[in-house]
C-alpha cells in the first residue's frame, strides 16, 4: 500500500520546522516517528498534503532532567526512554516505556508523537495524566506550556493551534517518596492495550498519600483521568482496602466497549484490578 501523494521537507533546525509549519498552517503536519501516521496514511485514514519531517533535528532527541522535571524531547524514541537512567526519576514513565508496542516500533516511534496523536488506545497519555505532565508547544511566534488535561481534547484531537508543534513533554519529578506503575493487558506484544492503567503515588513524610495520579487507556473515547479515585486516595493512609475502593472508583470512571478484545463488563473489572495492583506496586516502590 502507498499513501496519497504529499509535499515533503526535512528541515535540520527547529526554527526551520516552525517556519515551515507557520507557512503551511492547517495544511502542514509534523512527521516524527511515523509509526501511527504512516500506517494511517497508507490506509487513507489520513491524507496530509505537506509533511514536515523533524527526524533531522537531532537537538530534539533528548531524555533529561530540567528544573525538577523529566523532559522528553520531540525526537526521543520510545526506546530512548527504555534505556534512560534519567527516566527512572518517574516510576510510571520508566515502567510504561518497555510496554509501548514492539521493539521495532520503539526504535522509531516517539513519545511526543504518541502524546500528540491522542489515540485513546495509546499508552503514553494515560502515563502523562498520572504523572501530571505538561506539553511544550512551539510555533514561530513563541512557546507555551499546556497541562496534559487541557492538551487532550478528544478522540485523536489535541489542543495545538495551526503552526504549532509539540517540542517536549515534561513530567514533574516528585520531591518526596514516590512510585509509579503502568499495568497493560494486551493480547500479544504490539497489539493495542485491551486495558491499560497508569498509577503514580507521592507520599508525605508521615506516610499518607500527598498526591495520586491514575490514567486509563482504551476504556473511553480518550485517555481518562480517574479523578474520583485520585480524590479518595489523597490525604489517606495507604491500605489494601483503600486501593480496592480506588479501583472501584476508577472502574466507574471507565466506559469500555465490547469488542474483539473482550466485553465491556470484563474490561471494567480489569480496570478495578489493575488500579488496585498498580497502586500496590507504586506504594512498594515508594517505600522501598
Amino acid at each position, binding site marked *: 500500500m*502507498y499513501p*496519497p501523494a*504529499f509535499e*515533503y521537507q526535512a528541515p535540520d533546525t527547529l526554527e526551520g520546522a516552525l517556519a515551515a509549519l507557520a507557512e503551511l498552517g492547517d495544511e502542514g503536519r509534523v512527521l516524527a516517528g*511515523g509509526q501511527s501516521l504512516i500506517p494511517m496514511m497508507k490506509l487513507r485514514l489520513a491524507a496530509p498534503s505537506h509533511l514536515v*519531517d523533524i527526524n533531522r533535528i537531532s537537538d530534539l532527541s533528548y531524555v533529561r532532567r530540567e528544573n525538577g522535571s523529566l523532559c522528553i524531547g520531540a525526537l526521543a524514541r520510545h526506546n530512548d526512554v527504555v534505556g534512560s537512567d534519567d527516566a527512572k526519576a518517574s516510576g510510571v514513565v520508566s515502567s510504561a516505556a518497555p510496554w509501548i508496542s514492539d*521493539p521495532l516500533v520503539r526504535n*522509531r516511534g516517539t513519545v511526543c508523537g504518541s502524546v500528540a496523536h491522542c489515540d485513546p488506545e495509546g499508552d503514553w497519555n494515560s502515563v502523562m495524566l498520572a504523572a501530571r505532565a505538561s506539553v511544550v508547544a512551539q510555533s514561530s511566534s513563541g512557546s507555551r506550556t499546556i497541562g496534559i488535561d487541557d492538551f487532550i481534547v478528544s478522540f485523536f484531537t489535541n489542543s495545538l493551534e495551526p503552526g504549532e508543534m509539540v517540542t517536549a513533554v515534561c513530567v514533574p519529578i516528585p520531591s518526596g517518596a514516590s512510585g509509579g506503575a503502568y499495568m497493560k493487558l494486551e493480547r500479544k506484544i504490539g497489539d493495542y492495550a485491551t486495558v491499560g492503567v497508569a498509577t503514580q503515588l507521592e507520599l508525605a513524610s508521615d506516610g499518607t498519600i500527598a498526591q495520586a495520579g491514575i490514567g486509563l487507556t482504551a476504556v473511553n473515547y480518550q485517555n481518562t483521568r480517574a479523578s474520583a479515585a485520585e480524590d479518595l486516595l489523597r490525604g489517606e493512609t495507604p491500605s489494601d482496602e483503600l486501593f480496592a475502593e480506588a479501583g472501584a472508583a476508577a472502574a466507574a470512571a471507565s466506559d469500555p466497549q465490547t469488542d474483539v478484545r473482550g466485553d465491556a463488563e470484563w474490561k471494567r473489572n480489569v480496570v478495578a484490578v489493575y488500579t488496585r495492583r498498580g497502586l500496590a506496586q507504586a506504594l512498594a516502590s515508594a517505600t522501598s
Partner: protein
Amino acid sequence: MQININVNGTDHSLDVEPRRLLVDAIRGDLGLRGTHIGCDTTSCGACTVLVDGTPIKSCTMFAVQADGSAVTTVEGLKGADGLSAVQQGFSAEHGLQCGFCTPGMMLVSTALLEENPDPSEDDIRWAISGNICRCTGYVNIVKAVQWAAAAARNGGEEG
C-alpha cells in the same frame, strides 16, 4: 526527490516520490527481494531492515527519510567468509519453516547480538517480539540465535 543511500555497502542514488516506502525502494528500485512485505500495516516485522544499525520496519518509513543512511538487508548479512553466524544458526537449528519471516528474524537477531553477545532466552524472545512467525512456534528461532551467539563466542566454530 533525489536520495543517496548505502545498501549493503554499495552507494545508490535514487529518484523517488516522497511517498515511496523504503521497502518498495529496496524491492522495486534496487531489486533486493529478500526484504518481504507481510502485513504492510506495521504489525508483522517481515520487512525489517537495519537503518544505521537499528532494526526498523521498512514498510513504515519513507525512502526519502533514509537519505544519507546505511541500510542493511538480508542480502547484506553474508560476509566475505560466507554465511554469517546468525545465518548459519538458522540453518543448523532449522530456525524456519516457510521462511517468510526469516530475513526479518535474522536482522533483529544480528542487531541483538551486536548489542548483547550473550543474550538469555528472555532477551532473545524480547528482541524478536516485534517479528511474527506463523510456523515455528519460535522455539527453533530462539535456538538458532543461541547457536549464533555461542558460535561467535567460540570464534566462528559451532557452539
